[in-house]
């Protein structure tokens, strides 16, 4: 009878998805994280359905209709070249999302690798790796990204590289601190006794333990990434015109701000909402993944 249970229980992929559903259900119970999830869902939807949602082409100029206030024709008004701001915002969500995704994909593994290796080996390896991390940490991240972009040349791809290069150190720090609390646990000793290599111990025993806090950190980090990207765009070092990047839109709108408030307000509100949403989800995740609450669910 007991052996009957075996084949059913072996469907591992579904078992792996179960905690995801639990986390989502936990997030849905809190109004703040529901707001965050809703905004992110809207952002993703907007990015996917940009051609359908946009009422105008994002680059289409209409010089007879410049700086028009919000109306039924142009929901969020038009800019100094007569381009529809609503359409540009919708298309800009693709840029924002791709920046967040690319930066996170690069930063997560780098931070985890540096942090776990430094924390696991300790000693000289730790010292060297952490001093390098410290050097990156000792610059304000926007200034350092500015330097990188200035060196690499201003465009969107280099902005992404620069942001990634400046935002891995906090993740590495965190992963190292977590690793140091786990590396002397008995289950790591047991793995070592079984002949597991260091790489295997780091990948199979230590990384899974660090993952929740790193994920929280990355989510909170996304808010900063959006702001940095917008900042770089604003300074003219990120996405270049005519790309509808939100920060760049604010930068060009700044000149007409006094008479045409809609030029900066709508991109500003979009940046605010999205970075707030990521912060709220990060907070929600922290509650959901708190190891002390792990056994209760």
């Amino acid at each position, binding site marked *: 009878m007991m*052996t009957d249970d075996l084949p059913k*229980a072996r469907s591992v992929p579904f078992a792996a998805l179960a905690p995801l559903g639990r986390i989502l259900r936990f997030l849905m119970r809190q109004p703040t994280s529901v707001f965050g999830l809703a905004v992110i869902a809207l952002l993703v939807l907007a990015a996917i359905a940009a051609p359908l949602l946009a009422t105008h082409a994002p680059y289409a100029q209409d010089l007879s209709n410049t700086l028009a206030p919000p109306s039924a024709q142009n929901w969020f008004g038009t800019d100094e070249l007569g381009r529809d701001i609503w359409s540009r915002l919708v298309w800009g969500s693709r840029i924002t999302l791709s920046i967040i995704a690319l930066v996170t994909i690069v930063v997560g593994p780098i931070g985890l690798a540096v942090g776990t290796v430094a924390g696991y080996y300790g000693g000289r390896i730790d010292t060297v790796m952490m001093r390098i991390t410290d050097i990156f940490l000792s610059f304000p991240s926007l200034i350092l990204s500015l330097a990188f972009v200035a060196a690499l040349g201003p465009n969107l791809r280099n902005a992404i590289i620069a942001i990634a290069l400046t935002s891995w150190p906090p993740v590495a720090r965190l992963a190292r601190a977590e690793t140091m609390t786990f590396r002397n646990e*008995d*289950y790591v*000793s*047991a793995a070592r*006794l079984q002949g597991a290599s260091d790489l295997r111990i780091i990948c199979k025993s230590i990384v899974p333990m660090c993952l929740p806090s790193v994920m929280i950190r990355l989510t909170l980090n996304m808010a900063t990434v959006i702001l940095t990207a917008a900042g770089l765009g604003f300074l003219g070092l990120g996405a270049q015109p005519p790309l509808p990047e939100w920060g760049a839109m604010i930068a060009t709108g700044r000149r007409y701000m006094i008479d045409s408030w809609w030029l900066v307000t709508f991109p500003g509100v979009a940046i605010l909402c999205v970075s707030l949403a990521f912060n709220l989800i990060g907070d929600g995740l922290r509650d959901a993944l708190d190891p002390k609450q*792990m*056994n209760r669910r």
Partner: protein
Amino acid sequence: MNPIHVRDLSITLGAVQILHGISFDVRAGECFGLVGESGSGKSTILRCLSLLMSSWQGEVLIGGENLRAMPLARRCKTVQMVFQDPYGSLHPRQSVRTTLSEPLRIHSMPDREARITRTMIDVGLPLAFLDRFPHQLSGGQRQRVAIARALILEPEILLLDEPTSALDVSVQAEILNLLSDLQARRGFTYIMVSHDLAVVDHMCDRFAVMQKGHLVETLTRGALTGIPEEQARHPYARELIDASIAYDRAM
């Protein structure tokens, strides 16, 4: 089956000497106890024998072969350890199946499923538990999983670091019976650390008394059961045993 010889095992960390020239022999297939108060170095000896701690001097021979010179793969299949705290010794994110199959995967041993099934039966756990996580198991069940993990590579020698002290009394008896049952069936050699002389009396044929990093005396079970010619001679060993017997009487 091979006997274990430990010769002049000592550890010095900075100015502090933690173990002072420990020497003892364990016969093949016997259960050897290490007793003493907290901090006397009992668990440290196990950590040395398992090479979790490697900065020690001295010599450990297993069947005449130097432990340090043994290739890793063979050492893993010779010496395994069961830890004190079953709440800390199992990876919280790994199911029982993963915990048991990892060592088999590391040593690329064939018939994984069959070995896991056999080991689960050996330690008296239902196969349905394979897909549970540690937090879904009780303390006794966790310790059974930890024992299963130690058994799965089919070692000859099991190092038991107070395997029952974190469990409550009825479960302690179950685990001890499981261990002596396994020994009777498979002929393991045990080195068992304990501060509970009743456990030592139940499990061990011979035991050594430790104090402050010194091995003060090696005794046989007779010293606990009151056989006159096997009584402890060293004053500290005597004191420890008398205190334990007095405690048992008082209970």
